[in-house]
């Protein structure tokens, strides 16, 4: 009985350590993505935290993914200029769906992650564009989507392998420890 309790405590502390490392990773990526001038390519910067949250959702499932998705979205809301909670809501929703897709339909690999990050970014940026600019019919507002939102979506998809393999490395390390 004592042995079993010791095993459970160890399992619990390993999981706490893993989730703390995920949280620290999100924080680190948030700092990196907001540093002025860093990773800027043609005036576009990638959104690292969303790619990391989607990777977590793929590996950890819909529940953990949903929570980290909400956290990543809120970080985007903090740095960005959209309504606070907007990205939190949609990134969380997309991460929940990603987790479910991996359980029922999709393989958990880099290609799946690239697709999910692309769709998540497209949904968030597309909806933000529609509500912030599209419905107000500013002059040439479509250019904001093609020249700003779309490049951000593509750039964020391009950098996805880095957070994906980072998250997978952490996941594998802790999975081995749990075994």
């Amino acid at each position, binding site marked *: 009985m004592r042995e079993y309790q010791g095993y459970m405590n160890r399992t619990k502390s390993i999981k706490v350590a893993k989730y703390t490392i995920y949280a620290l990773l999100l924080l680190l990526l948030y700092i990196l993505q907001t*540093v002025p001038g860093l990773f800027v390519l043609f005036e576009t910067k990638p959104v690292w935290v969303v790619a990391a949250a989607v990777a977590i959702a793929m590996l950890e499932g819909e529940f953990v993914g949903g929570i980290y998705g909400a956290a990543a979205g809120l970080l985007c809301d903090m740095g960005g200029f959209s309504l*606070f909670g907007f990205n939190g*809501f949609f990134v969380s929703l997309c991460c929940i769906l990603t987790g479910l897709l991996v359980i029922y339909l999709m393989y958990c690999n880099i290609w799946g992650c690239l697709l999910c990050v692309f769709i998540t970014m497209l949904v968030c940026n597309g909806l933000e564009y529609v509500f912030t600019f599209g419905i107000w019919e500013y002059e040439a507002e479509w250019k904001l989507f093609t020249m700003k939102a779309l490049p951000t979506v593509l750039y964020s998809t391009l950098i996805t392998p880095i957070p994906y393999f980072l998250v997978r490395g952490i996941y594998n390390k802790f999975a081995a420890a749990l075994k």
Partner: protein
Amino acid sequence: MKDFLQSVRFKILIAILTVMAGFMIMAVYSGGTASLVSEVVSFVTVPLQRMSSGISGRVGEFFDRFLNSSAVYDENERLQLQVNELLGELADYERAKHENEQFRELLGVLEDRKDLKVETASVIARDPNARFGSFTIDKGTGSNISVMDPVMTADGLVGRVTEVGVTYAKVVTILDIAIDVGAYDSATRDVGIVSGTIDLAAEGLCMMEYLPRDSKVAEGDLVLTSGGSMFPRDIIIGKVIRVGPNSHGTSLMATIQPAASVKTIKNVFIITEFQGQGQE
């Protein structure tokens, strides 16, 4: 799937999404005041962002010396030509000096502005989702900064504060389509509204609208704030680089090159108090 929909996990996830929707509703009614979550997270992130932007700036400057050596060489060549041209223009110097003195007198530069109370701040974050050069600074309500406070550099107006927390504030720039600044042309005294457009923002420019059709506004004129409750009077916005009729032909619009380098600035002043602030 049916199991998932009936599980406690599903209910918790629905609760999280509801909380996110609640944040959105709160944000609509908060009027630019940061939410509790932003405040708490910012206590962790702002010091880290301040540190990382400082490091990034220094590292960037170091590597720029090597990466941009050919650009520096080209620039040197170009500057040499410019020096030769400037020597030829020496005759105009006295006139320009006299003009400059007139402008200074007219504008009343910052040191002469006893009505302005300013706070200095550093740009600590530029988010991938931020548009029109918007950024976050490392000062907030703790330094007497409030929503709508004007932001400038020694060169000219940058924008205004749109959201403020205890340790940070978000700034929208004069390139933003959502900003309107009352302005006048220093040469003709014609008034108009300076605002951003999507096309011009991509080039780092903004425009002055609603100028009278018979206005004599010309290329090279300085544009300054006309004052009021939102911005103090006589802050330089920029220089006119093009003038033309608006799309309906009812008034003139001037394209403005902002005096401040809106997209690359690292330090700013926030005007926390000025004459006429907040008055209707």
